[in-house]
């Protein structure tokens, strides 16, 4: 093994970094949107809706991400073909973003539900007592507090998803890891270990930064005030 060669792979690897970032950012956005929808469902008084939402969460949390990738990438086009829809034009990166959005949306939904429930019930009652509608109370009182509670979990969910973007190469996306594979096969795998170590270092540094950003955001956001959480 040639440890000294590791840094020399960084520039080439980094050319694929925007792809990894794009997957992460888009998946975070979609997982938050889907998660919001599912969390509202899971909090619904309607038992059927709550049941569907909870079933969705259980399914998405239980299934390994790699299997979900294959289900979508290999299975979905076949199913769609049966009903006459051709999915050949869809890029592989779209499948990855869809997969990560779906699988992470379950964690996001759980995060939102738990954070909402952690805000003391008295906060909503106080908002009602001064004549606010639920919408106003949610926007002005409940959401800001729930958000503060959710920050650490949100950071964690993003970090976990960021690491899972490394599965993208399995369907041929040239992300960080895909690039790493390309580099090593160009030299017939002789430098495979060094290239993957270089990839690992990049992931590790990014996670370190994300952790810092999470902590920083939390400190800024909750500065001066303690959160009023239930019980």
């Amino acid at each position, binding site marked *: 093994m040639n440890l000294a060669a590791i840094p020399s792979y960084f520039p080439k690897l980094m050319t694929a970094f925007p792809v990894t970032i794009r997957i992460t950012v888009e998946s975070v956005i979609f997982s938050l949107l889907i998660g919001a929808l599912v969390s509202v469902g899971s909090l619904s008084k309607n038992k059927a809706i709550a049941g569907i939402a909870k079933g969705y969460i259980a399914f998405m949390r239980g299934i390994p991400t790699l299997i979900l990738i294959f289900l979508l990438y290999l299975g979905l086009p076949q199913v769609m073909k049966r009903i006459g829809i051709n999915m050949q034009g869809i890029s592989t990166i779209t499948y990855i973003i869809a997969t990560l959005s779906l699988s992470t949306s379950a964690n996001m939904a759980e995060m939102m539900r738990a954070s909402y429930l952690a805000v*003391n019930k*008295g*906060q909503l*009652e*106080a*908002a*009602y*007592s*001064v*004549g*606010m*509608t639920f919408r*106003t109370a949610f926007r*002005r*009182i409940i959401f*800001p*507090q729930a958000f*503060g509670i959710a920050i650490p979990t949100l950071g964690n969910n993003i970090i976990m998803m960021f690491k899972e973007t490394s599965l993208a190469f399995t369907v041929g996306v040239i992300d960080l890891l895909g690039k790493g594979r390309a580099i090593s096969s160009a030299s017939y795998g002789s430098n495979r270990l060094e290239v993957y170590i270089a990839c690992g270092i990049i992931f590790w540094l990014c996670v370190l930064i994300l952790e810092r950003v999470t902590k920083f955001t939390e400190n800024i956001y909750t500065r*001066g*005030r*303690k*959160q*009023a959480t239930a019980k």
Partner: protein
Amino acid sequence: MAKVELTNIHKSFGDNHILKGVDMSIEEGEVVVILGPSGSGKTTLLRTINFLDAADEGSVSVSGFKVDCKKHRKSEIIELRRKTAMVFQNYNLFANKTILENVMEALVTVKKYNKKDAEKAAIEILAKVGLGEDRLHFYPSQLSGGQQQRAGIARALILNPDVILFDEPTSALDPELVGEVLQTIKAVAQTGITMIVVTHEIAFAKEVASRVIFMEGGKIVEQGPPEEILVHPQEARTKEFLNRIINTNA
């Protein structure tokens, strides 16, 4: 016309019948103190007035705006709540807002004041409850219980409600802070605003109440001027209750 009118209020939680037909008619400017043992339904009764808990039966009317508890619309509840305000046992100040923001909040979001005017009004009210400029930008968690509750009173007052509901406003406070909050409530009472106060502070009731209501088992047992109810109660249950809290307070 009565300021607050409750007719035949019934409320159950599951199989637990908590309020068993409460009628109450309160005139403008009255300070009504509600007494009663734990579990008698005092808190529940206050909460049915602003529909934090909707009663199963009966009607609530504030300043002539009457809502049928059985079939109420959301918009009616909002309107009713805008005629009332509540001071909570554990303050329930908005944890994400400073004291000043807590008091301004409903003026801005509910009454649509511009920020400047709301701020001016809030600072004025806060001064009245003894919270000066130096405390305006503190968050609730940075204040003593007494200060928090006085801010809670300011938050209720600023809406200029037709009636303020107090649910044991001093019972979560350290003993040495009870006095300052009772003083504040007394000063509010003297402005002539209609108030319903659930409390165990008998001395306060004697001094400030225009009427005392004794509740037990989800019903009003007896009511009248404080000197009658507190000094010469007619009902054995009232006597027994008063003996008990006077003995434990002493």
